[in-house]
Each structure stands twice: as structure tokens, then as C-alpha cells.
């Protein structure tokens, strides 16, 4: 009996510190990577401004949330930010369309190489970063309200009588739920609607799509709208789950790029898969397993150190190694890329 309880305790530990946060973080990375992969597949460049697009959308959402809170409006048990999300999306759509009109459109016409567009997107990144920092400042902002936990560790312990508690935050549950909804809608759109099919055709073979009468301006417009929705939702969910800080969103670029490339550039399913692979690898490699082994092994074999493979600061190394490994072994990604 003792051994079974120990085993369950160890299992709950892993659930609590790897599976639940991994699912939430993976969904956030996946949504971000989806945005990157859409730009990569249809506009054909690596968008360095994506992290700051997320930050911009989140910032608008936060500002509207604060306004709603000051008006005494709340969303009951759920965070008020969900009510503010549409406003954030609209603002992001607008800023992306303006950016496209003023910046990217020209380079599409003159057919610039992808690396130049990458540098151009760095300029956009700077400007967006400047706007975000100017409006909301470079510091941490918390905007989570409503109920905090779906399952609280203390209640879980009391309910099951185990030593280890399992806690699921509302933000984590929401993240996974919204990600599933959004991805479902995106796939329905890409697979079933006429516009979605046109977008896939455009990504697959631009010239052929143009010959078949696909309107490129419309495809680009829809792409930016989808990217804005994905970026704002991903950014807001990340901000709810952790906290909002402009610099963190810049740092998210690397795992998101890694996820997009890992799954195969331009492949949405790949981007989602890549997001979860990156998130779980980061958590698995940087988690300290000491307590798990304490439960599983007999007392004589208990480990003396933390049993941590790498310190948490090396999480970027994980994304990087996965990225380089994939590029060297299978440059097209796990699922073949360049197709939406």
C-alpha cells in the first residue's frame, strides 16, 4: 500500500510540475508559432516582429481590462481580460494592416529576398517595441482577476489524502480550452472555406494560385487578420498565465521560431506539434526530479542533489538545440513544411 501511494505521489508531482504547465505553455507557444508559420507560408519571411505584435495586442487588452475594471464590469469567475480581448484583436488587426500597407506591400511588389524582409521586420519590431514601452512601460503588469484556481493544491490534498497537491490555475485551463477552440476554427477555415483553400493554394504555389484567379491582396489581408487574432490571443493567455512584460515577449521569439521550424515551416499542424515538443522539452530538462526519486526509490538510494539536468536559465538552450538538430537532420521539419 505504501509503495502505491508513493507511486501516485510521484505521478501527481510530475502532473503538477510538468504536464499541466507544459500543456498551457505549449498551447501558448503553439498559437504564437501558428502566427509565425502563417506569415512564413504565405508572405514568405521570418517575422521578427511577431513577439512584439503579441505584446502590442496584449497591451491593448490590458488597457481595456483596466478600463472595464474601473467601470466596475467583471466577468464573474473568469478574468475580465476575456471581455477586453476583442478590442485587443481589433487594434492588432489595424496596426498589422497599416504596417502591411506602409511597409511590407512595397517589398512584395519588388520581390525582395527573404533575408531583407527579415531585416525589415526587425525595423517593425523596434517600432512596435517602442510603442508598447512608451504606452505601458517596460515593467511587469498583472491583470488577472476573477477566480485563480480550478483545483487548488490544498483542496486536492484534502480530497485525496495524498502528500502532493495538484493545482490547475484558471489561466491554464482557459489557455488550453481557447487554444483548442481557436485551432479548430482555423483548421475549419483553411480546409472548408473557399478563402481558406485559396490561402493554401497560394502558400503551396504562388504562381499557379494567381493563374487560377486567387486574389493575392485578399489572401494577404486575411492572413494578417488571422495572424493578429492568433498573436493577441497567445499574448493575452501568456500574460494571464505568467505576467506581462515587453521584454519577455521578445524572448518568446526563439521558442516560437523553433516550434514553427521544428514542425515544418508553413505547416499549421506542425507548428502546434512543435509548440508542445518545445514546451515539454524545456520543462522536462529543467525540472528538478529530486522529490520524484525520493518517492520512487528506497531510502538507501535517495539522491543527494537536485537531480536537475539543466538550470532553468538554460531553457533557451533547449529550443536552440532542438532547432539546430532538426535543421541538420531533417531540414523540412517533422511534418513536411511549406504547405498549409
Amino acid at each position, binding site marked *: 500500500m505504501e509503495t502505491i501511494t508513493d507511486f501516485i505521489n510521484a505521478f501527481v508531482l510530475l502532473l503538477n510540475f510538468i504536464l499541466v504547465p507544459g500543456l498551457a505553455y505549449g498551447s501558448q507557444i503553439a498559437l504564437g508559432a501558428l502566427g509565425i508559420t502563417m506569415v512564413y507560408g504565405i508572405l514568405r519571411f521570418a517575422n521578427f516582429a511577431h513577439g512584439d505584435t503579441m505584446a502590442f495586442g496584449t497591451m491593448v487588452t490590458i488597457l481595456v481590462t483596466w478600463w472595464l475594471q474601473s467601470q466596475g464590469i467583471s466577468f464573474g469567475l473568469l478574468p475580465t481580460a476575456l471581455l477586453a480581448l476583442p478590442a485587443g484583436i481589433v487594434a492588432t488587426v489595424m496596426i498589422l494592416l497599416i504596417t502591411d500597407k506602409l511597409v511590407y506591400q512595397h517589398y512584395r511588389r519588388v520581390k525582395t529576398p527573404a533575408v531583407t524582409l*527579415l531585416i525589415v521586420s526587425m525595423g517593425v519590431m523596434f*517600432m512596435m*517595441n*517602442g510603442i508598447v514601452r*512608451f504606452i505601458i512601460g517596460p515593467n511587469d503588469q498583472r491583470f488577472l482577476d476573477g477566480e485563480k484556481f480550478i483545483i487548488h493544491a490544498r483542496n486536492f490534498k484534502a480530497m485525496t489524502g495524498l502528500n502532493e497537491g495538484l493545482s490547475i490555475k484558471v489561466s491554464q485551463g482557459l489557455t488550453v480550452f481557447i487554444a483548442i477552440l481557436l485551432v479548430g476554427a482555423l483548421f475549419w477555415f483553411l480546409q472548408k472555406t473557399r478563402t481558406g483553400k485559396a490561402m493554401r493554394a497560394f502558400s503551396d504555389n504562388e504562381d499557379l494560385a494567381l493563374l487560377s484567379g486567387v486574389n493575392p491582396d485578399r489572401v494577404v489581408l486575411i492572413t494578417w487578420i488571422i495572424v493578429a487574432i492568433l498573436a493577441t490571443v497567445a499574448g493575452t493567455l501568456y500574460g494571464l498565465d505568467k505576467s506581462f512584460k515587453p521584454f519577455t515577449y*521578445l524572448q518568446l521569439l526563439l521558442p516560437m521560431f523553433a516550434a514553427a521550424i521544428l514542425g515544418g515551416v508553413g505547416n499549421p499542424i506542425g507548428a502546434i506539434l512543435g509548440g508542445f515538443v518545445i514546451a515539454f522539452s524545456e520543462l522536462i530538462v529543467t525540472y528538478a526530479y529530486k522529490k520524484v526519486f525520493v518517492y520512487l526509490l528506497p531510502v538507501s538510494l535517495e539522491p543527494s542533489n537536485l537531480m536537475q539536468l539543466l538550470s532553468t536559465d538554460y531553457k*533557451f538552450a533547449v529550443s*536552440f538545440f532542438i*532547432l*539546430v538538430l532538426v535543421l541538420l537532420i531533417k531540414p523540412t521539419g517533422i511534418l513536411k513544411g511549406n504547405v498549409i
Partner: protein
Amino acid sequence: MSNYQKSWLAFSIIGLLFLIIGLAQSWSVALGIFNMCLISSVVALGINIQWGYAGIANVGIMGFVALGGISAVLVSQQPVSAAWDAGWGRLLIAVLVFAITVSLAIFCYRKMAAGRHRTIALSATIILGLFATRYFLDPAVASIEAIEPAKTGYLGGMGLPILFSWVLGGFVAAGIAWLIGKIALGLRADYLTIATLGIAEIILALMKNEDWLTRGVKNVTGLPRPVPYEVDLQSSEWFVDLVSWWHGGVLSALIDIDRQQALKQFAIEASSIFVKLCYSGLFATVLIVILVLSTRALNSPWGRMMRAIRDNEISAGAMGKDITRRHLQVFIIGSAIVGIAGAMMTTLDGQFTPTSYRPIRFTFLFLIMVIVGGSGNNIGSVVGAFIIWIFWIEAEPIGVWLMEFGTGWMDDNNSLKIHLIGNAQHMRLFFMGLVLLLVLRFSPGGILPEVIRKRS
């Protein structure tokens, strides 16, 4: 306007800007900015070799700057003998085990036939080797970091004059660039750029965590200087004589105590300027040497080959040029120059703080310098470095001043006014991006475009 005239014009404008800063703020501030401009120019030259000559977009500049910085620490700090005594044995074994692991892995990779067996053997070697290394390294690290953690807690350096670090910084950066280039070059251009973004983060993560080597986030402060200290200058006779000769006119009008006071005040000011001038001399020497060498390289057959590869890889490959090898070469040379500049920067700061390295400031800003100045043109990179750095520093006071001017009609307690003035400094990012986009759109060659000489 020819490039020649343009560069004269650009340098005159830069000179005028320094004159304005010197008169409006102080000469000490102007010299401080000038020194950072010189260092930024060296970084820009390094990037120009990679991006301008060869078209490799490296966004891992921050990592190489930091490598230069740690070299300054490793060269100039005194060795901590207690730490060496505590850890050297295990450390040596760990290094040996790691070396054996790497050579075994390379051996497996080269000698075994590709397939499942090789994959298994390779992964087993690497995983077991890493665990074995950690087995010896962890206790060594613990014993080293236990020695006076508040003061040292690391191995220390070689105790040599800090100027040697400028050489070592170049070599360290070159070595790491070789390692990275071996792995990552040959990737598609845009993938390589993303990979370099990760490299910088990893180098920084190592510096923040491997306390036994770098002291991590506890920082290393008080690095020795290659130039005299202000206090020593103020008390040395020749310097005071020099100051009193320089300010002779003013001083002779004063009497006894007033004169002493004024002389003291002048000496304090002058010593700060003198130290900065010494640095300027050192940095300018490095800049000129690198500028001359790199311009000669650009105009040599090697430079023509690099540009040929950049403009059309396929046809250059067909002419028998080894593209991956040339890219590796250029990646190493460029990174080495950035490493030298990184060591210079830490020397100037007198301290090594890993947390101060941020990608916006240490990677993207330098890239903007090169692109705005003129990719492929060395003088252009220098001009870009000067202009962008002056702008970056001066945008803050100017932005605050503009905001105060613009919000002058508001009440002083107006929260909007406080917010606008408080956050005005962040607008420089916005303007930096704007400048980059405008240059890319309307003058893709930059201020001084690349010179393409045609044989008549």
C-alpha cells in the same frame, strides 16, 4: 554627390554634433559618447564583414560582445589560488572526460556507417559522457564556489594587463564562432539568422550560470585599467603643472586660497577628460588598424570573391569557390572583431555584468548601425556607428525635453504629463525602427552605399 564628398559631409556633421554636445552638456560627456562611438564602430566593422561582404545576417552579436567581456575578466583578474587548490584536480578530470566524450562522438560519427547503430552509439556516448562530466564537474564547481563567495567564488583570471584581453577576446570569439559555424553555417540564410539568435542567448545563459568561471550574476567589478586613475593624476606633480599651465590665464587672476581651490577644481575636471582621452587614443588605434586591414581585404581578390558569393552563390559555386568554407571564414573573422570590441567595452566600463547584455541594445542596434551607414562600405559602417550611437544617447534628453515642451500647457500633476515624460526615453526605440525602415525603403544602400568599381 560622390561617396567621397558624402563621407566628408558626414564626418563634418558628426564633428559638429560633438561640438554641440561638448558646449551644451560638457566635454566629459562628449568624450564619453565619442569613446562608445569608437567601440561601436569596431563592432559595426565586424558586422559589416559578415553582412556587408558576405550577406550573413548574424543576430547573435550580443553573445560575441559578451565573450569579449568575459575575456577581459579572465585576463585581468588575479587568480584565486585557494579556488584553484580546491578544485583543479576534479576540474581537470572533468575537462578530460568531456574531451574524451567529444572525440569519441566525433569518432563514432566519422567511422561508423550511417544508420540506427550509429545513432544509438552516438546518443549513448554523448549522454553517458555528459553524466560522467557532470559527476566530476559538480563537486569541483561546488568547492570552487564555496571559497569566499561574497568576494571571489570563482577561479579568477590570469592577472595580466587588461590590454591582452583585447587579443584574447578576439581569439575566444573566433573559436566559438568556428564551433558554431561548423554546426550552423550551410543552413538557409533565414534559418541561420534564427539560429544565431539562440546562440547569443545560450552564451549569456552560460555566463549567468557558470559562476565558477565567470562569477555569474554576482558580477566582476573593479577591473584594472590600462590608463591612469583620476586620483593618481590629481596628486601627481606633472599633471597639476600641466593643468595650471593650461588654465594659466584664469589662475593668475586669482590669489592664494582661491587659486588653490580653482586649481584643484580644474585638476579634477581635467583628470576625467585626460583619462577619457587616453581611452580614445587606444580605441582609435584599434579602429584604424581594423579599418585599414578590412578595407584592404575588401579590395583584394578575396573581397571580390566574397561579394561574388554574396550576390550569386550558385554562379560563384560553379566557378569553384567553396561557399561554406568562405562563409565559415568570414563568420569567424567578423565575430573575432566583435569579440575584440566586446573586450574594449568591458575595459572601458571597468566591470563585467552579464545581466546588462540585452539583445535590443547589443545586437539589433549594431545591425542598424551597419545598415543605416551602408552595408558593404567600411567608412559607411563607421559613420553609421557614430550617428546611431549619438542619436541613441541623445534621444533620451531630447525626448524628455520635447515632451516637457509639448506638455508645457498641462498642469504639473497631470498624470498624462507625468507618464509622457517618464516614458519618453522609450520612444528612441520607435525612432530607431523608423530610421531603419526609411533607409531600407528609400536608400537601401545606406548613407554611404557600397562602392562597386568597374574596370574600364
